[in-house]
C-alpha cells in the first residue's frame, strides 16, 4: 500500500542548502515540496497559502520582533515542524522546543537520517537527537523550577509593587515611576525598596534581572506607559 505524500515547506537562508534539500525531498517517495522560503515573512506567507503538513525549518529564524518562526507557523497552519540546527547547541534545541517544534535534527546528519526524522515527525513522534535528550530534559526541569519560583515571588508583591517592578524592567528610575504612577518620589522610593526586599535581592538591577530571568515580566499585566 503506498503512503500518501506529505506536503513539506522548506525554510532556510542559504539558497544552496535550501534548494538542494527541496530537490532531494521532492524525489522522495513520501514527500512533496509545496514551497520554500528564505525568510520569516516569506515562510509565513507560503505557510498560509499552502498549509503544509510538515515544515523543515532552519534554527534561529525569527521575526524582527523576535518571534520564532516555529511559533509563527503554528499560528497560521497545521504543520508539524522539524527544526534543523547545530547538533551541539542545547540552547538552540531548548529554544526550538519552547517555540513548539515537533522535532529537532542536527544539520550534521546525512539525508537518510533527516528523512527518518521527518517521517517520525509526520507520524506524530517528538524527535530529539538521543545524545541531546538528557540535557534537554534537565533544561526543561530547570526552567520549570524558575517559573514556579517566579510565581511564588510574584505572590509576595502587592498590585502597586507589581506595577513598580514592571516600570523598573522598562528602565524607569524612581522619578519616572513617580511621574507615571502619579505618586511622590518618596513614595516611589518606598515601593522600590519594598520590591527589592520582598524579592530577596539587594538592588534595582538585581530585581530587574530576577524578574527577567524568572519570566516575571511576562506574567505581569503589561500596560503601555
Amino acid at each position, binding site marked *: 500500500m503506498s503512503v500518501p505524500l506529505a506536503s513539506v515547506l522548506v525554510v532556510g537562508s542559504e539558497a544552496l542548502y535550501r534548494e538542494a534539500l527541496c530537490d532531494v525531498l521532492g524525489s522522495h517517495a513520501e514527500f512533496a515540496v509545496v514551497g520554500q522560503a528564505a525568510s520569516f515573512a516569506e515562510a509565513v506567507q507560503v505557510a498560509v497559502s499552502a498549509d503544509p503538513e510538515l515544515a523543515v525549518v532552519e534554527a534561529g529564524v525569527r521575526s524582527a520582533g523576535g518571534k520564532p518562526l516555529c511559533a509563527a507557523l503554528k499560528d497560521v497552519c497545521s504543520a508539524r515542524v522539524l527544526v534543523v540546527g547545530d547538533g551541539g547547541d542545547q540552547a538552540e534545541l531548548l529554544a526550538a*522546543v519552547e517555540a513548539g517544534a515537533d522535532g529537532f535534527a542536527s544539520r550534521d546528519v546525512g539525508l537518510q537520517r533527516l528523512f527518518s526524522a521527518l517521517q517520525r515527525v509526520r507520524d506524530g513522534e*517528538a524527535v*530529539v*537527537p*538521543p*545524545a541531546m*535528550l*538528557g540535557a*534537554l*530534559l*534537565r533544561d*526543561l*526541569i530547570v526552567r*520549570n*523550577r524558575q517559573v514556579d519560583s517566579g510565581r511564588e515571588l510574584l505572590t509576595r508583591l502587592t498590585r502597586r509593587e507589581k506595577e513598580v517592578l514592571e516600570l523598573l524592567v522598562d528602565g524607569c528610575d524612581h522619578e519616572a515611576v513617580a511621574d507615571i504612577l502619579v505618586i511622590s518620589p518618596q513614595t516611589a522610593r518606598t515601593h*522600590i525598596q519594598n520590591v*527589592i526586599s520582598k524579592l*530577596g535581592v*539587594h*538592588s*534595582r*538591577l538585581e530585581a530587574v534581572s530576577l524578574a527577567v530571568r524568572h519570566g516575571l515580566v511576562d506574567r505581569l499585566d503589561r500596560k503601555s506607559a
Partner: protein
Amino acid sequence: MRSVISGGGVPQRRPLLRVDANDERQVLVDAEHGVRYELNPTALALWELCDGATRVAEMVEGVCELFAVSPERAEADVYRTLDEFGRVGLIDWAAPGHLEDVEDRARRKRATAEPRHD
C-alpha cells in the same frame, strides 16, 4: 518502589556506572561487576536526571511537556522506568530530608550574604 516514590523519595544514580552513548546506542557499564545495561534514549535521559535532587514529579512534568503526552501516560512511563532501575540496582533512593537539607542550606546562604544598597 511505588511506596518510596509516593513518600517523596528522590532517585540517586549509582556513581560507579559509566555511560557509553552516542546517537546509535546508549549503554550503562558497570565495570566493577562486568555488567552492561542497554537503555533507550529516554531511559538514559531519566537515569541521568537521578542526581539525588531532581524529584520524580519534575521528571514526569518534563516528559509530559517534551513528548506531548498526558500526565497519566508520562507518570506511568517514568514510574515504570524508575521501578526497573531500582529493581536492577541502577539507582538508590535518597530520603526527602536530604533534598530539604540542600534547599535549606541554599536559603541560609542567601540570607547571610552581606547587604548592598542601591
